[in-house]
């Protein structure tokens, strides 16, 4: 990737230093913050307790939750698609989804039921966007799941398109139990550690908590202004 340009920086930053009343800061160590209450939230709770919190929060953000294991997984997904009365689906090209059961076999089964299931395919370029725009359901996999806020964290990549969870009218997030952490604190630390290790981070990291909503008209809640109107989380027990 070629380096981008930077314009107008020196004057701008010199002025800041001058106004603060010192020379330009050359090296700054981030201090150890005096208080760090973020680490105390749900500290020491086990996965079971966190899962209860997660489910309670999903209720507040108008998101359905289905718990299942590997054996019931395919059926849970199929039933959700059926409940949404969708006739087309788009999902991430993610080996974790395939391994869990959303493979070729699943796609032909769905096809027999009249539901066209497409996988985000980098070789097909822009066509993916048109498919996502038409699809009734989008399916992604949660990389990290936040118990406190009912949030799935999506680390996007070429195979994990940004629009899969945004354009279709209904959204399904597949959530492995093992991905659950107390809150955003743990997820952002993970990203911070990657940056410190000099690793590249995803061009988009998306924190998604339930369907799209707004309260801009008389403060009353309406869903689906831009993104999905309905959302279901399918929690997948670990093998």
């Amino acid at each position, binding site marked *: 990737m070629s380096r981008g340009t930077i314009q107008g920086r020196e004057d701008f930053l010199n002025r800041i230093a001058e106004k*603060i009343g010192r020379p330009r800061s050359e090296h700054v160590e981030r201090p150890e913050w*005096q208080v760090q209450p973020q680490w105390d939230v749900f500290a020491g709770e086990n996965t079971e307790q966190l899962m209860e919190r997660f489910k309670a929060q999903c209720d507040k953000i108008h998101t359905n939750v289905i718990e299942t294991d590997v054996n019931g997984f395919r059926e849970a997904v199929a039933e959700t698609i059926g409940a949404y009365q969708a006739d087309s689906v788009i999902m991430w090209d993610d080996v974790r989804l395939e391994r869990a059961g959303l493979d070729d076999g699943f796609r032909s089964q769905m096809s027999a039921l009249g539901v066209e299931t497409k996988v985000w395919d980098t070789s097909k370029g822009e066509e993916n966007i048109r498919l996502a725009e038409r699809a009734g359901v989008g399916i992604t996999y949660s990389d990290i799941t936040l118990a406190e806020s009912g949030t799935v964290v999506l680390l996007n990549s070429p195979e994990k398109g940004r629009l899969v969870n945004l354009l279709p009218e209904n959204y399904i997030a597949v959530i492995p139990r093992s991905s659950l952490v107390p809150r955003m604190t743990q997820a952002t630390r993970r990203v911070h550690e990657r940056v410190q290790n000099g690793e590249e981070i995803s061009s988009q990291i998306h924190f998604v908590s339930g369907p799209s909503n707004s309260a801009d008209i008389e403060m009353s809640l309406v869903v689906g202004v831009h993104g999905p109107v309905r959302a279901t989380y399918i929690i997948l027990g670990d093998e």
Partner: protein
Amino acid sequence: MPLRVGEKDFQTRVNKGLDDAFMRGTVRSAQEQLRTRKQASSEELGDWEAWRSLGEEIRTHTLEHLDYYLEQLSDKVAERGGHVYFAKTAEEGNAYVRKVAREQEAKKIVKSKSMVTEEMSLNDALEEDGLEVVETDLGEYILQVDDHDPPSHIVAPSLHKNRAQIKDVFAEKKDYEDSDNANDITRFVRGELREEFLDADIGITGCNFAVAESGSISLVTNEGNADLVTALPKTQISVMSMERIVPTWEELDVMVSLLCRSAVGQKLTSYITTLTGPKGEEEIDGPEDFHLVIVDNGRSDILGTQFQSALHCIRCAACVNVCPVYRHVGGHAYGSIYNGPIGAVLTPLLDGYENNKDLPYASSLCAACTEACPVKIPLHEQLIAHRQIITEKEKLGSMPEKWAMKMFGTGVSAPKLYRLASKQAHRVMSPWTKGSRISNGPGPLKAWTNFRDLPAPASERFRDWFANRRRSEFDE
């Protein structure tokens, strides 16, 4: 839309607000709803005061080393292939965005809500070049379709409009034929905006917080419009005011947690999007071309002054939601896109005192704003500091007020004068007194009594009452 909006005269704006019964009703219920939700969700966080202290510490440190963190941020953005432009003024920032739009031969631009681009009047600048600019946040879209009606709240910009008014706007401008039900209106807008997103050449966003260590920008929304603005058009331009930055992802967590709770009483909003540079080479969606415009526009003049901490503001509107003055007059009365207590502090700093000298007086100094602020900006103290500057240095205070301040100053500093004045007060005020209230006071009292009654001075002074009481207690 510039920083300053609406009627020129403060008194006219205030009267308009006071006369608008609907607006006052929605403002009251919105304040109550947002405040209650904030209280509930911040209690769940455990020690809210510790969170506020952490927020304050992070903001103070970052602002003290702003040059360092902005340098790091811009290097990291460039490393990932993004372009960074430092704009000292609104004009410079607008010129850069116009240049990018020309180079891309753009026709349509979709935007997600951004206060700094409002402050810069960026939309006007782009429209002058013949570009179509579409605001995609539902509230902002309503205002834009309604001939650019100004926003009245930082988080809920169309708070002053009711459903019927919104329905009428869409019926008149967009041939909307359905009911005034919020769900029906939303459905309609969803369809309209979908087309705009798929058509747009450029997406413009603001930036809630930039992360210096990785060159990322973050956008906090409930609707997901920022996500579509940044995923569909080929070119993305994010405009940030220079102070909206955190050192690392760990501080992003804290600031976003404080923002969501303080603004809308949510643990997190439905979407928090973080973007680092343009899309990768193999990626299908996301911008090919990413620009970050970092804007000063008067902010550096606030650094190193007693008002520096006003730059800690994270635009959550918690101060707006507790303010008794805002409750009575509404957002338009401030005549600025930044309204409520933070608006009264910030607007004179960014736009000078000349046109905004009334704003620091639009406060009861009850300090509810200071207590509500998640990053502990001493808002009411800064309002007092503004008043001092206005009356002492700028000589802009109204004559009766200066006269009153001077008289009060002389009066209380000389015990004899004070005794005489307070003894005479009851008799002196009697022509204006009805029962125990003064509702049409003279001179400096007029500004106050235009809006509310003042209790009349008691016939017996407190000092005399106290002295008599002590004497009678002693007698017993």
